[in-house]
């Protein structure tokens, strides 16, 4: 094999730099200026969600009838509500509720949706038809109507909001992952794995799922924004958090009556929702550009 070695010496001395997918991602991520800033904001929100209770200047539940409906000031950064509670502290508390509700619901929706999508795309046939027709039925309803219907069955409350959002999240993930699976299933490297005798579960887990992971991450981030909005809407309708809780949506409901006189009661949670949803969407957009550039124009 002497000749062989000689032939390849040069060709094999090329790869000196160690490629790492994480380094590569980081390099490209830093270039996404808008998304990068948005991700810093998201990070800040996550930190707030964790340490919130320890950094609030006031107790968010403690009424103070001496300072009702005061506008923003140095002592109350975002003003106070109709019970004199500090809105800033309540927003900080609300961050934890909003993020955990949306994250948990999207997470469960994504897990179930991904599994269904993988099954549907990989096996096709009867299972595929059942899963896809069911999700078509669910797609026929607007998300929020579907959520309201579910809560009508389960009763109001944050846990049920999580369930409702998770349920309407499932079909969109199922469809996304099914599409990606169909595409990856036809690639040569999956065929190669089959020719080696890899079991179906191994092909799905080792070859197909990692390929869909990028789109999954992008969509997951985007759906968090949607879920925050949905949770706020449900709370606003009185179907979610009970009126006393410092939930952003519930705060909007409470403040509705004072819209004319003390508009900050509504504007502050409104801004919180707006900024958070925007940030998640920007991060999602940026992730898509970095991880999944081919779906950019979809």
């Amino acid at each position, binding site marked *: 094999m002497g000749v062989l070695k000689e*032939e390849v010496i*040069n*060709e094999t001395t090329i790869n000196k730099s160690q490629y790492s997918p994480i380094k590569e991602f980081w390099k490209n991520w830093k270039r996404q200026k808008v998304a990068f800033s948005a991700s810093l904001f998201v990070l800040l929100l996550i930190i707030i969600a964790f340490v919130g209770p320890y950094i609030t200047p006031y107790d968010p539940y403690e009424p103070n009838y001496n300072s009702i409906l005061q506008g923003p000031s140095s002592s109350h950064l975002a003003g106070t509500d109709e019970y004199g509670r500090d809105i800033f502290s309540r927003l900080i508390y609300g961050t934890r509720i909003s993020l955990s509700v949306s994250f948990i619901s999207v997470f469960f929706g994504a897990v179930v949706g991904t599994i269904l999508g993988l099954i549907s795309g990989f096996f096709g046939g009867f299972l595929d038809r059942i899963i896809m027709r069911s999700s078509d039925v669910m797609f026929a309803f607007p998300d929020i109507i579907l959520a309201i219907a579910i809560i009508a069955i389960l009763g109001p409350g944050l846990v049920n909001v999580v369930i409702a959002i998770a349920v309407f999240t499932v079909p969109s993930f199922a469809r996304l992952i099914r599409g990606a699976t169909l595409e990856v299933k036809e690639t040569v490297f999956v065929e190669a794995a089959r020719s080696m005798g890899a079991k179906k579960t191994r092909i799905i887990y080792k070859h197909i799922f990692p390929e869909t992971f990028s789109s999954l991450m992008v969509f997951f981030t985007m759906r968090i924004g949607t879920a925050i909005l949905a949770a706020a809407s449900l709370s606003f309708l009185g179907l979610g958090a009970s009126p006393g809780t410092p939930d952003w949506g519930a705060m909007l409901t409470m403040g509705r009556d004072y819209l004319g006189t003390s508009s900050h009661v509504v504007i502050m949670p409104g801004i919180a929702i707006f900024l958070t949803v925007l940030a998640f969407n920007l991060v999602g957009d940026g992730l898509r550009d970095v991880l999944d550039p081919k779906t950019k124009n979809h």
Partner: protein
Amino acid sequence: MEDIILKVEQLQTDFQKDNQRIRILNGVSFHISKGEILGLVGESGCGKSLTSLSIMRLFKGTSGEISGGNIFFRDEDITKVTENQMRKIRGKQIAMIFQEPMTSLNPVMKIGEQLMEPIRIHLGYNNKRAKQHAVQMLTKVGIPRSNEIMNEFPHQLSGGMRQRVMIAIAMSCNPDVLIADEPTTALDVTIQAQILDLMRKLQKEENMSMLLITHDLGVVAEMCDRVVVMYAGRVVEEASVHDLFQSPLHPYTRGLIGSVPKIGQKKDRLESIAGRVPDPSNMPKGCKFAPRCSDATAECHEKEPSMLEVEKNRYCSCWLYDKGRSLISG
């Protein structure tokens, strides 16, 4: 040589990558005479296709840019003309056909429409005359039922037929130079034989000049009069087709010709060229082929050789043939 129709001199083309300008073509020079078929050979990444795009100035949507050198079409330097003037040259005087006819034809436009468009623009014919001319062209490139084909869409045709349509479009305005970029690479051998036969016939009939870009040495040997061999964005050798195959000068050309299996030739092992084409953003110093060259000396790694006329009409850029030096090894 007063009949030179296209002359490329020291052409340099740059691309932008990661905020860095990378020179892909560096000093490409050659000429094509009237009625001549010039082959441009090299492996993927050598810049042969980019050379044709530079001549046509087809950089739309890319960061490509000609940064040096001249391209003379007849006596006019077409690197200096405006985009508007260029549009008049493109298609009318210099036409081009590509490797994959499906991607260069518009999938939602009828064949007839696509064929008539350049005829109307460049020859100024009215609809009726343009149509007549188009049908004539289709017949000329050997398409049966040319009248019906006019109303069909590209996807209804086979690969070979599509390439015929492309040739018809390219030839419709009777260009002086036809650039064919890997015109038969995507086709089956029996279809390739048809298309090459057609191209040769048309070229003879019209006494047209042709730049044939290909990686297939067989196609070169059958079609071309003269050959330019490119490597890493540079021309390494230029010779008549007979000289090139009989006694290739540059070590790269020798390796290339030796590595092609030839029908009827009994060989247990094929020659091959070690290593791979260098990355344009990380070019070696000196001769770009030196890292893969078995004849390379210390000097080859240091200084880049220049093009020399080694014999009459035989050019090669390699230190082996620089008589001013005494470094010939092995």
